[in-house]
């Protein structure tokens, strides 16, 4: 600082030498530096991947989808995890509110496991391979007629094939280990749910808050565009894309992400309009803050409750939509989506009931858990309960 005052004096506002400090720009906080660093590393990684075109040292050979997922995780870290870590008082307050809902706490635990296993698991597990000898093995502790599996991996007692720990959840008609399929399915569900939701949140928040803050033509044009967007039939558009380019999880996520932010934008706009009437916005303006500053420091933090709740309730919808499309055979044939596994087992229900049932149960609980979580977050983050 340019003041030559004694250290004890620099705490008083009259001693600030304002001519030495003129702008709100020109430097970055620690978190901003870290964020920009991470984004730069990310961009570098993508650029290297594009340039080399083959496997990279350390990074392997990530698909575009993997890059998007990493970006989503990066955003989540900087905009959800770090703020919570930075402000333990606020975090404890929310946690107290949140833990009153036992079902939601259990859901959170379950989803944390699904997320961790789905994110890390597929890198360690081998991709399921066709194994004709291991077809239709029953899960451990259960038994089926010995003629259902090709060859029974466990004991055959009284013409019944018993499951073994070799295949704890059994195998499907191609001899894929159901446990592996489950883990790969978790990855697909997490990718669909989180990436598409991240797109929806980022675009919806940006459009909604700008519409509210700038008003006038910006508001009119963006909201009419949202009207238009909400009339686009996402399903048929996706079928068209499958017809043109073939089923691809990457395209599915992009289509869902880029076509479904209209609702969030509307919600955020109305919330931001309410907030921008508040006097603290005027106080910031009067202190000389720019629109961008007000947007970032005041409007977005104050609409975040709405956004987080809406996002948490969007995730299960997207996961179900992906499973549904995969079930119909419109999914990505190269991935092991739960919907696809369920569809594969549909014809086997009479003999090998577990093929459809195991992923079905996990799909059900995942969707349920996200719904519980969304409800609990809405209650915990409601500003009216903060007073």
């Amino acid at each position: 600082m340019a003041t030559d005052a004694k250290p004890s004096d620099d705490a008083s506002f009259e001693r600030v030498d304002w001519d030495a400090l003129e702008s709100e720009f020109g430097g970055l906080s620690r978190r901003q530096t870290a964020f920009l660093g991470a984004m730069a590393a990310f961009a570098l990684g993508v650029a290297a991947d594009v340039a080399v075109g083959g496997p990279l040292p350390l990074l392997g050979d990530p698909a575009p989808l993997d890059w998007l997922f990493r970006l989503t995780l990066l955003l989540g870290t900087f905009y959800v995890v770090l703020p919570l870590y930075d402000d333990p008082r606020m975090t404890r307050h929310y946690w107290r509110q949140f833990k009153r809902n036992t079902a939601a706490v259990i859901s959170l635990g379950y989803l944390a496991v699904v997320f961790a296993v789905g994110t890390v698991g597929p890198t360690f597990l081998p991709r399921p391979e066709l194994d004709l000898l291991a077809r239709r093995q029953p899960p451990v502790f259960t038994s089926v007629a010995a003629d259902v599996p090709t060859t029974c991996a466990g004991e055959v007692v009284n013409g019944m094939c018993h499951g073994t720990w070799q295949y704890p959840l059994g195998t499907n008609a191609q001899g894929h280990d159901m446990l592996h399929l489950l883990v790969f399915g978790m990855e697909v569900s997490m990718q669909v749910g989180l990436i598409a939701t991240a797109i929806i949140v980022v675009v919806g928040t940006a459009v909604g808050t700008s519409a509210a803050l700038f008003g006038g033509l910006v508001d009119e044009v963006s909201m009419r565009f949202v009207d238009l967007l909400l009339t686009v039939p996402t399903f048929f558009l996706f079928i068209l894309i499958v017809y043109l380019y073939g089923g691809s999880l990457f395209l599915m996520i992009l289509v869902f992400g880029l076509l479904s932010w209209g609702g969030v934008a509307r919600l955020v706009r109305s919330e931001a309009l309410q907030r921008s009437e508040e006097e603290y916005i005027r106080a910031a303006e009067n202190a000389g803050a720019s629109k961008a500053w007000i947007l970032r420091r005041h409007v977005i933090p104050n609409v975040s409750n709405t956004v987080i709740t809406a996002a948490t309730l969007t995730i299960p919808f997207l996961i179900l939509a992906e499973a549904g499309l995969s079930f119909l055979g419109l999914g990505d044939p190269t991935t092991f989506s739960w919907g696809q596994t369920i569809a594969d087992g549909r014809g086997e229900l009479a003999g090998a009931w577990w093929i459809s049932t195991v992923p079905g149960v996990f799909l059900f609980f995942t969707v349920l858990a996200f719904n519980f979580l969304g409800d609990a977050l809405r209650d915990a983050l409601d500003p009216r309960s903060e007073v």
Partner: protein
Amino acid sequence: MTGRPDEPPAADRSGEPLLRVRGLKKHYPITEGVLRREVGRVRAVDGISFDVYPGETFGIVGESGCGKSTAATTLLRLEEPTDGEVLFDGADVSAASKAELKRFRRRAQMIFQDPTSSFDPRMSVGESVAEPLRIHGMRDRDRRRRIAQDLLERVGLSADDVDRYPHEFSGGQKQRIGLARALVLNPDLIVADEPVSALDVSIQAEILALMRRLQEEFDLAVVFISHNLSVVREVCDRVAVMYLGEIVEVGPTERLFADPQHPYTRALLSSIPTPDPRERGRGIELTGDVPSPSDPPSGCRFHTRCPEIVQPDGYEFEQVHWRRVMDLRAKLDRGEVGRESALDLAAAQSTATAGATDGARATGTPPDEARAAIRRAFDLPEALTDERAEAVLSEALGLVVDGDSDRAAALLAKEFSTPCERRRPRAAAVDDGWSATCHLLDGSRRSEGVEPLPGRED
């Protein structure tokens, strides 16, 4: 500025004013349809001028809706003025560039009415107080925090409060924090928009005392906006009285309160409750509705409610009766009095006085009954003292009862026209630094009228 003695801050008015407002206007367009065609405008602030000197407290009073708060936000350029200029320390704020405006923001701060909504619920109060420092380029986080702690202590809170959130404080405490935030940039001017209206009376006194202490300590000029005349009398050196977007009187507080010159100021001051029982019941009651700023009255804006409205040439009214005749005229002009309403009035009054058994008479109300009913509704006597005026009034009432309200309105407008509705009054100097904008003072009635202040004529 030299050190002042302990008496109320007598501002140094010999030097240059810190803030000079000239002909400031803020109109809000009323739009219609998709194309936002302008169909009218709300004249929230319509040409106000005043000066504020360094270290002085300048009050702006008026009823709610008279444009006080708009005046505050417009002079700080939180809203773009429609017209006029604001000179701060000699530089025109209304034409300032982005960088100049930002520098002005550092020197002029605002305190808000609602202490609850003026703090971001997601920021700790320390962050809120220090935010202006950050905006103006102080990057040192620890220093910002130290300054916030120091300031919180100076406004009577504890340094440990920096990490607490707004909802953990009471209204009075939040207003203290609001003062801290306003002070943090070491401004020269603070605009306080109803700073104590949302607080309990006991807390009000504390906050006002704190404001006065800080004002003396940091030599601040304060524009104090309030509808509370007692508070204004206590804190302000000079005061401007606003009515419908215009300043009707401006002068030194004590003298203005002791001897108000404008009829509106007199009416406003008479509404202050007084502890002296002998003084009670002398309030001036304003009749007529408050006009809308989207369609302000012609001439003097107060003429539709003024108890001292100038009488028409050639007639001698009792002043109260003259006022009531004007109320009748106003309602006739707006089409709110007609044959139907007169008959209804008569019917209602006759049932009220004669009881329900005579209600049958109401169906066939005779015309003179209806005329009398209108007189009663407007508190007019059976007959005016001036015979010629009475003749005109009876004729007009006759026309109303015959169903020709338009001609009645035209007749009254022709016969009973007052300079107050025809011409806008000019500001007339009452004394040094004291002026009022009224036809009673501006020489249109008194030939010995004084020169109007520059910059006030429209």
